[in-house]
C-alpha cells in the first residue's frame, strides 16, 4: 500500500529525514518509536502533504501512485489520514460544519452524493459516542478549548468518520488517562481491517498492549535503524535506546 524509498526531507533548510525506507501492506499495523526530535512527526507531516516540509530526495508511492505528486487534499481523498500530534484549534468553525464538509469532500471524490445535515448528525453522534465524546463537542469550534485528551479523541473520531485506507496516528496515546487510552485503543482496533493499514507513532509500550502491531521500527536521526516484531517494543521499554547506538543525549530525552 505504502512504499517509502530513500526519503530525505527538510524544514527551513534543516535536514530531518535522511534516507528513510518503509514498506506497509494493506491490513498491517506498524509502530514507529524513537527519541524526541528524531523525525517521527516530520515523516507523518510529509506523508500528509504539509508544504512547510520539503522533500529533497527519494520517493513515496501509495497504492501505486506517486504520493508526492498529489496535493494535500488529494492525498486525504485517496485515503490518507493523519491524526495530529498537536491538533489545531480553529475557533469559529464548528466541528460539525467542518466534519460534514470533510465527509462530503470525500464522498464527492468517490462519486457519492452529499450527506444531508440530518443524516450526518446521526452518523456524527454515533462516532462521538464510540470515542466517548459528548455530542455537545460537535457544536463547539474545531478543537476550541478541548483538553489534550479530548483533542486526541476528536482525531480518532475523525478517523472513524472518514474511514481512511492509511491512518497515521502521531502520538495519539500521549496525554491520555488510562480510561481514555482504552477508548482510543478500542477506536484504533475498530479501524483495523484487511484493506486498511495503520502507522502508529508512539513512545509507549502501554499502547501496544492494547493494539498489537505487526512491526515495530526505531527511527533515529531521520532513518529507520532497526525493525522487528512486537517484542522489539518490549525490549526498548526495558533497555531504552542506548543499546542501539543512539547517542545518550537523544536517548535521555526519550519520553
Amino acid at each position: 500500500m505504502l512504499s517509502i524509498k530513500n526519503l530525505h526531507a527538510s524544514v527551513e533548510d534543516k535536514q530531518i529525514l535522511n534516507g528513510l525506507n518503509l514498506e506497509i501492506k494493506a491490513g498491517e499495523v506498524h509502530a514507529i518509536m524513537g527519541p524526541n526530535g528524531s523525525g517521527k512527526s516530520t515523516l507523518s507531516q510529509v506523508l500528509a502533504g504539509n508544504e512547510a516540509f520539503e522533500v529533497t530526495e527519494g520517493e513515496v508511492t501509495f497504492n501505486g501512485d506517486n504520493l508526492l505528486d498529489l496535493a494535500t487534499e488529494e492525498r486525504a481523498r485517496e485515503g490518507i489520514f493523519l491524526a495530529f500530534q498537536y491538533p489545531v484549534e480553529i475557533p469559529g468553525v464548528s466541528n460539525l460544519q467542518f466534519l460534514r464538509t470533510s465527509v462530503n469532500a470525500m464522498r464527492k471524490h468517490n462519486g457519492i452524493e452529499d450527506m444531508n445535515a440530518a443524516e450526518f448528525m446521526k452518523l456524527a453522534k454515533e462516532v462521538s459516542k464510540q470515542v466517548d465524546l459528548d455530542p455537545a463537542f460537535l457544536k463547539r469550534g474545531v478543537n476550541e478549548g478541548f483538553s489534550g485528551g479530548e483533542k486526541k479523541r476528536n482525531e480518532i473520531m475523525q478517523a472513524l468518520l472518514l474511514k481512511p485506507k492509511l491512518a497515521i496516528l502521531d502520538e495519539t496515546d500521549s496525554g491520555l488517562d488510562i480510561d481514555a487510552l482504552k477508548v482510543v485503543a478500542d477506536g484504533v482496533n475498530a479501524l483495523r481491517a484487511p484493506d486498511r493499514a495503520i502507522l502508529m507513532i508512539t513512545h509507549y509500550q502501554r499502547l501496544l498492549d492494547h493494539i498489537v502491531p505487526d512491526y515495530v521500527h526505531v527511527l533515529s536521526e531521520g532513518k529507520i535503524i532497526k525493525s522487528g516484531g512486537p517484542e522489539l517494543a518490549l525490549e526498548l521499554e526495558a533497555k531504552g535506546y542506548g543499546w542501539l547506538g543512539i547517542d545518550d543525549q537523544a536517548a535521555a530525552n526519550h519520553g
Partner: protein
Amino acid sequence: MKSASTLSNAFLQPAGQALPAALLTLRFDRASALADLILPTRKTENWKYSAKHLKLTDDMASTLPMDASAEAGDYNSGYTVVMVNGVVRPDASNYPTLEGLSIQRFGDLSEDDASVAADMLSKSISDQPAKSGSVNMSQLNGARFEDGLLIQLQPGTVLDQPLFLIHHTTASHSGSAYPCILVAAGNNSQLTVVEDYVSSGDCSVMVNTTTEFSVGDGANVTSVRLNTEGQSVQHMGTTGVRQQRSSRFESHSVGFGSTLRRHDLHVRLEGEGAECKLNGVVVTQGTQHYDNHTTIEHVAANCNSEETYRNIAADKSHAVFNGRIHIHQDAQKSKANMSNKNLLLTSGAEIDTKPELEIYADDVLCAHGATIGQLDKQSIFYLVSRGLSPRDAKVLLTMAFINELVEQIPVEQVRDTAHTGLKQFFDQAFKEV
C-alpha cells in the same frame, strides 16, 4: 505644489428651496461656514489614510436628479421609505401607520417640527468642524440636503417591525446626493431602522449621508447599516447618537460596496445607565478603501459600551479603523470594551487600526485590543488534510472571522443580504484556487 484647496463653490449651491424656513437658514449657515475651510489632506489627522482617495471635483458637485424608475429593492414585505438621490419617493414607499409614530418629509414639517429638526441638526455632535479647520463631511450634508425625514416616536411607542430606509443613488451621470435622516425616539420607545445604501449606474457619484438618533430615557434603538453600492460610488456617512438615561442603542454595520467608504459614528452616552453596542463588518477587495471612525463618549456615570469591528482586506484594498473612547471626568463606573480584529488575505492589502483612549475618570473598566493577522497556515493544513479544498478551507476560516457578528444582525433580510455579499466576496477573493 498647489496650496491646500478649499471646497469648490459649486459644492455650496443647494438646488431645491422647498424647505421650512428653519431648515433653509441652517443650510445657508452651513454653506457659509464651509466656504473658508480647506479640504482634508493626509495631514488632517482623521483623514490621514483616506484624503488621497476623496474626490470632490466639480462634476461631482451637482445634485443628482430624482429618478422615478429607481428600484426600491426587495423589502416590500415590511415598512419602507425609499429615497432616491436623497429625496423621498412616496409612491415607492410603504409607511407604517402606528399611533405614536410620525414620519415626515422635511418639506412637510410644521414650523414647530422644523425647529425640532433644525435643533437636532445644529446640536449634532458629528457636525462640529474638525479641529484642523478642514471640511467635515457631515457639514457638507448640512449645506446641501434637499429633503430628509424626521421620524418621531412618542414615549412608549414600539414599532413592531424594522423600518427600512432604502437609499438609492442613481449613478447615470456624475453628481452627488445628500440624504438626511433624523430619528427622535421618545422615552421607553423601541425601533429598528435599517439603512440600506444601494446604487445603479456607473458614473462617479458621491452619496453623503447624515443620520441622527436621539434616544430617550429607557428607549431601545437599533440601527442596521448596509452598504452594497457599486464601484463608482464614494460613500461619506455620518451617524450621530445621543443617549439618555438607561437607554440602549445598537449599531450593526456591514459594508462590501462602493469604491471609497467613510463612516463616522459618534455615540454620546449622556444619561446614567445608558449602554451601546457597536458592531461592524467590513470586507474590501480590488482597490476599495474603507475608513471607519468611531467615537464613544461616556459623559454620564454607569454607562456601558461594547464595540466589535472586524475588517477583512483582499487584493490591493485598504481598510482603516479608528476607535476613540472618551471617558469624561464624571463618568465614574464606566465600562468600555473595544475590539478590532483584522484579517489580511493578500500581501498587497493594507489595514490600519488605531485605538484612542482618553480617560478622565478614575473608576472605570476599559479594555481594548486590536490585531492584524493572516489566515493561519497550520489551520489551513489541518482542514485540507481532511479533504477540504484549499479554497473551502480558506472560506471557512474567513467566514469564522466574522460570522459571529453577521449572526448578531437582528434583521433576517439583512443577514441574508450579508451572506450573499460575503459569498460573492469569497468567490472573488479566493478565485485563484
